[in-house]
């Protein structure tokens, strides 16, 4: 992970324009991880699950027109800014910041350690233009870019849908993207980091690769064992099982990492993807040694 930065409300607010065309801004509201519930109730948990540090909210108002709201989150690290952006990837690419989507009046993007939501309370041609203009201005004002999570480098590229990769820490977020189990059988949480990737196979078949990085090999071993016990009780010592839908699930535990392939067409393909992951993991370890 990149080094966490101290949150700075004034600095964050300075990235947001004071006006947006004829819309005038109201006084900023500032929230941290404890007070965010006062602003967006339980929705705050999503941002807390990505370690949010600070939120500056600025509302733009013009009589007779829908309000536009900018919510600027300092996530503390670019990895978590990327991660919270990947929580909802629906929408069209708006080419703003380091990654963006636009849908139904909402522009979401990330840049450096910041995640931005620019939202028109009602979408019109005028508010869509305003939202995009505001987003571009904010992105231009953020001086640096930040790195994506290193875990992305462990995803085998063949068949990978690179624009659909999710990064997260929390099992509730995993379940949102791909339901595994009601309980946290992979022992996720803030000490862990995970990527969930989608792969397209022949005939449009879709499989997934989950890679979790734990704080130490002991935690990875415990989590891998927990997953196999609950999800693959019929594995009988093998690394893969054919599940009720006729697809294959396979898991491997390597050092601090647990990798799981879900819904692959065959046992062989599931094994190949895990081997490709292991190769990339070894390469990453070599890269660290050389540095």
């Amino acid at each position: 992970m990149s080094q966490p930065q101290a949150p700075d409300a004034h600095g964050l607010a300075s990235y947001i324009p004071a006006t947006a065309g004829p819309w005038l801004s109201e006084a900023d509201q500032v929230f941290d991880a404890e007070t965010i519930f006062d602003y967006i109730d339980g929705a705050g948990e999503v941002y807390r699950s990505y370690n949010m540090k600070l939120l500056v909210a600025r509302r733009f108002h013009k009589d007779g027109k829908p309000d536009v709201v900018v919510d600027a989150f300092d996530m503390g690290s670019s990895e978590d800014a990327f991660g919270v952006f990947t929580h909802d990837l629906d929408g069209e690419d708006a080419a703003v910041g380091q990654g963006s989507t636009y849908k139904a009046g909402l522009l979401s993007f990330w840049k450096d350690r910041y995640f931005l939501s620019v939202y028109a309370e009602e979408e019109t041609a005028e508010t869509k233009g305003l939202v995009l203009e505001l987003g571009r201005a904010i992105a231009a004002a953020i001086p640096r870019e930040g790195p994506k999570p290193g875990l992305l480098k462990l995803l085998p590229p063949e068949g990978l849908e690179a624009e659909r990769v999710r990064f997260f820490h929390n099992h509730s977020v995993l379940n949102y993207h791909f339901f595994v189990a009601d309980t946290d059988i992979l022992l996720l949480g803030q000490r862990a980091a995970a990527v969930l990737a989608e792969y397209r196979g022949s005939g449009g078949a879709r499989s997934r690769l989950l890679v979790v990085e734990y704080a130490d090999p002991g935690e990875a071993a415990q989590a891998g064992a927990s997953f196999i016990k609950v999800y693959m009780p019929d594995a009988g010592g093998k690394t893969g099982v054919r599940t009720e839908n006729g697809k294959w699930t396979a898991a491997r535990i390597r050092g601090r990492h647990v990798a799981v392939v879900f819904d692959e067409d065959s046992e062989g393909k599931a094994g190949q993807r895990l081997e490709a992951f292991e190769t990339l993991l070894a390469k990453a370890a070599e890269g660290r040694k050389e540095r």
Partner: protein
Amino acid sequence: MSNRTITRRDFLKVASAAPLAGVLAPALKGAPGAPRAAGAAEEKVRVVLVRDPSPLGPGGAPPADVVQRMLDDAVRALLGEGDIDKAWKTLIRPEDVVGIKTNAWRYIPTTTEVEQSLKRRVMGAGVAEDRIGIDDRGVLRNPVFQKSTALINARPMRSHHWSGVGSLIKNYIMFVPQPSAYHGDTCADLATLWNLPEVKGKTRLNVLVMFTPLFHGVGPHHYAKEYVWDYKGLIVSRDPVAADATGLRIIQARRKAFFGDDRPLQMTPHHIQLADTRHHLGVSDPARIELVKLGWDEGILI
């Protein structure tokens, strides 16, 4: 009837929540949760869904007189009593101090029309106006709620970023000083709110407002006009879990119609099933719910 195979993911979704848990249990030893024993000859819980095609006003409610009629029809059907004042007198005593727990969410509130319809009928049951309070976020500081002997629970249903849906069960979250204490496991145990001394045993009626439900959300505010529709309904029950389970079915049906698939809600709304199976607050199983439908049936989805 769907021919879709039930997978271990389905099992692990319902193992701690729903009666389906028994289906795969023998095949998946070691999985958490246990099948729920079927009760013998259980009575059904009544839920009334009432709808009216009248146009909605700018606040998202039908005209006040239509809302009053909808509510009255629903309460009469719920309680099997033709006289509306008599019906309310079976719910509320003249000496009660009544809190109407509403919901003031910026985009889809309970609506003044529903609040005032409820207040009118509580007064019709003999309660003086100064013994009736209407509040949401201020309930802990509101003197009427502090002294309340009866509660009416009224809120809209909407999809929710963390609990799956905003529900009647969840509407009592404002009775705790720190709502986030109930956010664990995506709000799984919200039903325990109903054991708080401020609440326990006081709820006389639940009204799930379905005038303009939100079936999907985007962004931090979890709202876009694209994802609300004019359903123009109210769901009324003594049982908050049964009312929520019914509302959830409508939300899910709308999602299926809109998205064209069984796309899950952003977070699992398992707090509704768990309110039944873990906390025994009410009934979530549709097979144990007697759904009475009144009024407009076009696009009813259930």
